[in-house]
């Protein structure tokens, strides 16, 4: 197996990801997270994330090179996330990537973070099975997006995205309402294990018939978060104990239900019997279980990359660049910037 040797740099949120790939072969996937530090604040603080990226970059690059047993001189190209993401965090990676490329005299590919999440799937062992078109559901603390991918390097369409909080953010905020620590995803999961997901019927955002015109594939989690907080407050005000397990399970069910329902609706409406899942929230077992079961019933094949490639990482950025190189794309010019709202249609900038 061969292909271009690419080092990818990812700094769009709170993980400093450095990955090295040779074509579709994963050589290293080094991730330094500032999550422990963020936990003190109960969420991702952009300035804390950006400071951590600056400190983690050089050691992470060195660790990735060592793990891959390659040197910087061996590289065919450098790749970096241009957006979307936190502007100040992205800029650290962009500045480093440009300087590294100039220093080495190597081409630089600036790519889209969300499309990178899709590219993560080609690094899996059975990558030959990846077929297009596919619907992709990307869920993390920073984004919640539904995409239609006709071609990884040339044709990705945004079907819908969250209009307020990302799903991962909703987990963090509801965890706080329930007095659980950050990050909320695993905590809600743990609390929900003993709970009844049907105990409380929390609202499904943007799921009414009237929403189907303009927001059929969009998501909204801020109303859900408020509904949970209000429900808990009413219990507390009445002097009654809060059934944390039931609240956690019912909240999680509302999130999972709306994610899976909209993803499978997109598959059906576009006649695409394939669904790719990505993003850190895919670590949530209930989401995976419900997606797999309901997709099977709908005749939709589900692909889930290994979790180490679902969370933000540099390998997916390197993989996307390697595909662009293999497709004959020219490198990015050096004038691109960090674009916090980079549209998904801009696969390379």
């Amino acid at each position, binding site marked *: 197996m061969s292909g271009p040797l690419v080092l990818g740099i990812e700094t769009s949120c709170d993980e400093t990801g450095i990955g090295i790939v040779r074509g579709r072969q994963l050589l290293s996937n080094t991730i330094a997270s500032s999550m422990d530090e963020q936990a003190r604040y109960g969420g991702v603080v952009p300035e804390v994330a950006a400071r951590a990226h600056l400190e983690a970059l050089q050691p992470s690059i060195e660790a990735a090179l060592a793990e891959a047993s390659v040197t910087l001189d061996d590289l065919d190209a450098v790749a970096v996330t241009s957006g979307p993401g936190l502007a100040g965090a992205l800029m650290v990676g962009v500045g480093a990537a440009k300087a590294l490329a100039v220093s080495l005299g190597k081409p630089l590919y600036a790519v889209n973070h969300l499309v990178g999440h899709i590219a993560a799937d080609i690094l899996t062992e059975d990558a030959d099975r990846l077929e297009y078109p596919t619907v992709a559901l990307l869920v993390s603390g920073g984004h919640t997006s539904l995409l239609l991918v006709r071609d990884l390097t040339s044709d990705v369409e945004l079907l819908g995205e969250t209009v307020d909080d990302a799903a991962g953010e909703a987990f963090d905020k509801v965890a706080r*309402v329930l007095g659980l620590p950050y990050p909320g995803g695993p905590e809600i999961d743990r609390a929900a294990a003993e709970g009844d997901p049907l105990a409380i019927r929390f609202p499904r955002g943007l799921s009414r018939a009237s929403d189907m015109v303009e927001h059929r594939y969009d998501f909204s989690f801020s109303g859900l978060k408020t509904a949970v907080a209000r429900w808990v407050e009413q219990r507390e005000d009445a002097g009654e104990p809060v059934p944390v397990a039931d609240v956690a399970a019912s909240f999680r069910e509302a999130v999972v239900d709306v994610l899976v329902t909209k993803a499978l609706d997109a598959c059906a409406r576009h006649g695409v019997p394939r669904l790719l899942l990505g993003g850190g929230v895919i670590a949530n077992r209930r989401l995976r279980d419900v997606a797999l079961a309901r997709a099977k019933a709908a005749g939709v094949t589900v692909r889930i990359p290994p979790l180490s490639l679902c969370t933000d990482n540099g390998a997916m950025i390197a993989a996307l660049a390697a595909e662009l190189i293999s497709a004959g794309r020219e490198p990015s010019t050096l004038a691109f910037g960090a674009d916090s709202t980079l549209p998904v249609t801009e696969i390379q900038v």
Partner: protein
Amino acid sequence: MFLGIDTSLGTSVAVVEDDGVIVAEASSENPLGHAEVIGDLLARVVAESSAPLTHVAAGMGPGPFTGLRVGIAAARAFALGRGLPVVPVVSHDAVALGVLLRSALVDGLDSDSARFAVVTDARRREFAYSVYDGLDDDGLPVREVGPALVPRDDLDRVLADLDVPRLDAASVPATMVALMGARSVAAGREVAASEPLYLRAPDVTVGGARKRVGS
């Protein structure tokens, strides 16, 4: 041969020889857009430098954090790519060195007096300032005070107490960052720490009691 990089105000990169002769220089005065311009500026000065680089001097601030980090990240990554050491420099020191080397030409500074304060915008209604008193035997500026932050309205009173004229810097020349690096290496001295001069903790409030959503 020193590559200097500073993004504490605009974006400036330069290559100078060990004795300070400028080989190449490229800058953008734009106080934003550091990430956009840094690559082209670097490519330009590197293309104009024939002799191999030996060190990368990095302006460590003070300066607005988001832009400042772009230059430090670039300096570290460039050095990593070539296996070169990074020489950290206080950005105000580079301004002071430039002022002292051509003090007679600078408006508002009595050329007989070597004492002055370098002042830069620190955002959030604060200035960053450092006070200097001439050059030492190694040709490096002597920093008496700072870099430190002061509320904008207090700056002139603070400088009056210190009895130094105020010199507002609109840019930090990378040529002087590189020369600071060259002189400090020649003298065998470390003139700055390897961490950014943020001078401020991240602006966050640790989550307290949760807010009520109902009435």
